């Protein structure tokens, strides 16, 4: 048995040695045979000849012998690969074109797939992450769905529902603290979390013990967990960092009780520091604790409890709370979503659209390479015919052709994987901030397996046509006609199908890109209600410890605006609680004096402003007045409203002079504010949504420590150039403040549509590449046509055909291919573009303008690609071609 194995192995790994032995053995045989003939009286030469004849084909025997060794399959495969490598080396241009095309397709697909893998497939970095869910609130009256939770409701859920091991809460709205004493004042992104946050997630800290559940309530302690990133950048990766304190500019020192694991990116990849809730124990019973909604939650399901039954247990508590707290909870619902779905959220559809686009591009690339190989195979059909004539089996020849395409796709895949790795990094780098909820996109086994699979499938896909072609080669026909007639026409048949498919796919991609680009164009041309040009913005958070009174806060901001306005190049400066078009806003219920209470759920956004904000941002003042320095604390409270609010509540009435309170049912404590002006609508969040009713209160009367500053540059001055003097103005006033998020307002405006731009640009790039490949395909198949009919064209011309007729002949063929391709592409698009609808703004998925534009565009550039071979056809020289016979 062992010996048996050894023989086979030897046959496999040292075929040379076994073959050499066989050769020697057979040579010996022939020699002895010849000696025998010599003894019978033949001459030496004759004897040798006779012996060889008697022996038969040495190669044939060797072949049979090798078959007997049982290593033939692999032996042939190795030979095929060597042969393929030789064939590819011989035709470098073809190989290069094929490999690059494939690498492009595989690279694009791998890059997008690794993002899909990182976001949607990879296990979340939490223990038994499939048991984690997110709980949320909903209120149909207010249009709330998957909304933030009020702390009191959260605490009741946690105490009363029985489907969960535990429920943790955290904040995901932008919160900043200023880290002092570690170089320049540094603004950190903070998240507030409950003490059980890490326990629920099942994450253990590499350093420190983290929070305890007692940290939910303010007990005088100030513990903090820092990110691995901050630990390295600001604490010099100090291994004894636990117990060290840091200052956020307040009275208390925060003690570091933990460093997060390196890739920890929850709630956001940009979170720098996690702080405990530190609620005031007195708040628990206050109505505001149930009225204000601002918590996100994550819960771990009890073992054996399904999401559905956990949800049922939550619904019971929700119902109890509705009965117990009618003032706040009557219409307050709740729900459960698996954490992964929660995190992936609305990145899912864009990612899948991108993946489909990349896959279509890969298909086009495959068709293109298939075409290349067909032409290549045609050039070799004599070769193949010869092999048939010499006794190669069809199977063997087909396998040889497949090997060639697999070798090509293998090289393409290696290059594609590298491109994919780079592409994935590029995706992460150029994505709109926060779109992909991950810190890195690894090239893990799943991605590699995907690449290998894609490469193999595509290798088989584009290899199958040349392989079939090869097996149908008829030796006699190919040898006699020089491979021109039979195989030639078949190649063109296949090639035509491939090109039609390419055009159809390119049309599909282009329609998708067209729809997305058109939608993006519409969206970015929505008037935002303000003019971002020439405006520099930044935000400031002044610490409560040093600015502990209304007077100090207002005084600081007034002094700051005055300083900035005194800076050369600045036309004016103002402050606003939130920038428009940034998706962050505060809302409140409201009452209008002299009217019955509004229905539950009616609310208005509100912001505070200081200075000539509306004038600088060119928000039109429609009635009354806006800012006045006469509005002071203690003076009559005033507000400015936007047009949307005026339209909703004061149609046909004079809003100026009416009074508003920020309570649904006002009581004796309510502050009544008089409307003094109406301004135009700013889009507060997505540009796709109409402006909501909004109320602006002067900062002097409703102060806030965190504000955005807008500085308008004088005409002709780049707002970015104001960055340095404006920073200096802040530092001169208070050197312990960190300037955050400083950027031109135009960048803020662009960010509002960044996601749409990102997706449409990527799909557009895929589409352009796809169209280019399809055009190469059209060009190639027509050039092939001209080449194979060169003689015929020459004869036609010789017989008096007009050159224009010959040109038309080729163009007509091109036009036929194009029209079939475009028509099928449009049909597929019409059937599938609906999946894009939710990504489109004011553009129908079957938008005729896009469909018609794509048709014309494809037609025109397709014909342009056909022109070159057409021209070449008409240049066939009759005398020349005929002489060549």
């Amino acid at each position: 048995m062992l010996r048996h194995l050894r023989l086979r192995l030897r046959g496999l790994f040292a075929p040379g040695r076994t073959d050499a032995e066989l050769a020697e053995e057979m040579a010996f045989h022939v020699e002895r045979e010849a000696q025998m003939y010599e003894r019978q009286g033949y001459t030496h030469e004759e004897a040798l000849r006779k012996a060889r004849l008697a022996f038969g084909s040495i190669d044939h025997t060797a072949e049979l012998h090798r078959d007997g060794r049982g290593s033939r399959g692999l032996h042939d495969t190795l030979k095929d690969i060597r042969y393929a490598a030789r064939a590819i080396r011989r035709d470098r241009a073809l190989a290069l074109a094929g490999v690059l095309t494939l690498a492009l397709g595989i690279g694009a697909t791998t890059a997008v797939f690794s993002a899909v893998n990182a976001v949607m497939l990879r296990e979340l970095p939490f223990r038994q992450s499939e048991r984690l869910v997110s709980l949320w609130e909903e209120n149909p009256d207010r249009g709330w769905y998957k909304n933030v939770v009020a702390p009191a409701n959260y605490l009741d859920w946690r105490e009363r529902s029985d489907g969960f091991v535990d429920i943790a809460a955290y904040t995901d709205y932008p919160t900043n603290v200023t880290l002092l004493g570690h170089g320049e004042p540094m603004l950190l992104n903070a998240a507030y979390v409950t003490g059980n946050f890490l326990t629920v997630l099942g994450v253990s800290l590499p350093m420190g013990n983290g929070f305890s559940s007692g940290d939910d309530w303010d007990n005088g302690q100030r513990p903090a967990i820092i990110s691995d990133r901050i630990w390295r950048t600001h604490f010099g990766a100090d291994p004894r960092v636990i117990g060290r304190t840091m200052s956020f500019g307040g009275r208390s020192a925060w003690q570091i009780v933990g460093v997060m694991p390196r890739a920890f990116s929850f709630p956001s990849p940009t979170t720098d520091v996690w702080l405990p809730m530190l609620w005031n124990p007195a708040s628990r019973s206050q109505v505001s604790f149930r009225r204000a909604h601002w918590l996100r939650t994550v819960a771990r399901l009890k073992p054996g409890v399904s999401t559905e039954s956990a949800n049922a247990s939550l619904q019971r508590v929700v119902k109890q709370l509705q009965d117990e707290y009618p003032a706040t909870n009557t219409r307050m619902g709740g729900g459960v979503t698996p954490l992964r779905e929660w995190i992936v959220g609305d990145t899912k559809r864009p990612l899948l659209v991108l993946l489909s686009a990349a896959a279509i591009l890969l298909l086009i690339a495959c068709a293109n390479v298939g075409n290349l190989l067909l032409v290549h195979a045609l050039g070799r059909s004599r070769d193949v015919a010869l092999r048939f004539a010499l006794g190669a089996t069809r199977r063997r020849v087909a396998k040889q052709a497949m090997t060639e395409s697999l070798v090509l796709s293998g090289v393409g895949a290696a290059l594609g994987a590298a491109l994919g790795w780079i592409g994935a990094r590029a995706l992460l780098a150029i994505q709109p901030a926060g779109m992909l909820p991950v810190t890195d996109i690894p090239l893990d086994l799943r991605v590699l397996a995907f690449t290998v699979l894609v490469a193999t499938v595509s290798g088989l896909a584009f290899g199958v046509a040349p392989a079939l072609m090869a097996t149908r080669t008829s030796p006699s026909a190919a040898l006699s006609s020089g491979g021109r007639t039979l195989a030639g026409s078949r190649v063109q048949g296949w090639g035509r199908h491939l090109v039609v498919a390419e055009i159809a796919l390119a049309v599909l991609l282009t329609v998708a890109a067209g729809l997305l680009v058109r939608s993006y164009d519409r969206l970015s041309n929505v008037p935002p209600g303000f003019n971002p040009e020439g405006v520099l913005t930044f935000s400031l958070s002044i610490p409560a410890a040093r600015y502990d009174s209304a007077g100090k806060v207002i005084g600081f901001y007034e002094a700051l605006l005055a300083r900035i306005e005194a800076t050369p190049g600045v036309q004016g400066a103002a402050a606003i609680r939130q920038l428009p078009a940034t998706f962050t806003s505060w809302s409140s219920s409201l009452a209008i004096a002299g009217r019955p209470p509004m229905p539950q759920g009616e609310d208005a956004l509100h912001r505070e402003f200081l200075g000539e904000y509306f004038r600088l941002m060119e928000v039109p003042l429609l009635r009354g007045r806006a800012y006045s320095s006469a509005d002071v604390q203690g003076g009559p409270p005033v507000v400015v409203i936007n047009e949307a609010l005026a339209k909703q509540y004061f149609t046909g009435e004079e809003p100026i002079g009416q009074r508003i309170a920020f309570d649904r049912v006002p009581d004796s404590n309510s502050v009544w504010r008089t409307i003094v002006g109406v301004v135009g609508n700013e889009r507060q969040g997505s540009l796709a949504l109409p402006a909501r009713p909004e109320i602006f209160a002067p900062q002097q009367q409703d102060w806030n420590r965190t504000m955005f500053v807008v500085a308008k540059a004088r005409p002709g001055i780049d707002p970015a150039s104001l960055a340095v003097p404006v920073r200096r103005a802040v530092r001169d006033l208070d050197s312990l403040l960190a300037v955050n998020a400083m950027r031109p307002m135009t960048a803020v405006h662009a960010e509002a549509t960044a996601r749409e731009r990102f997706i449409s640009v990527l799909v557009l790039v895929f589409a352009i590449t796809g169209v280019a490949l399809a055009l190469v395909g059209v060009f190639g198949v027509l050039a092939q046509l001209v080449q194979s009919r060169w003689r015929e064209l020459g004869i036609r011309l010789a017989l008096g055909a007009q050159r224009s007729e010959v040109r038309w002949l080729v163009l007509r063929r091109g036009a036929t291919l194009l029209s079939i391709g475009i028509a099928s592409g449009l049909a597929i698009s019409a059937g599938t573009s609906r999946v894009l609808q939710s990504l489109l703004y004011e553009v129908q998925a079957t938008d005729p303008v896009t469909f018609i534009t794509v048709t014309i565009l494809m037609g025109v550039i397709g014909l342009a690609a056909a022109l070159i071979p057409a021209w070449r056809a008409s240049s066939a020289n009759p005398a020349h071609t005929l002489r060549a016979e």
Partner: protein
Amino acid sequence: MPDPTPSDVLRGTLDLLILKTLTLEPMHGWGISQRIQQHSRDVLDVNQGSLYPALQRLELREWIESEWRASDNNRRAKFYRLTAKGRRALGVETESWRRYVAAVEHILATG
């Protein structure tokens, strides 16, 4: 009467003939083919195209083993030798061959 043309050895019987030939002494390929031809009084001609694959097959079945040694004219040649397993196999194969021949003979006789 014309010389009878040597006929090819039936595929199944070649293994049997090789094994039988090797019971005499270890032999190289050419020797085996000569011996079969002689012993069959020139009736059977061993096709080289079948001989070497057959030797290969038998060696894989471990019925024979091979080694390189000097031949009578001092050239290196590959000698095949019957193994114990091969000897047993020869007995079985011979037995079944005889049964086969007897059966065929019986049919021909009664026909």
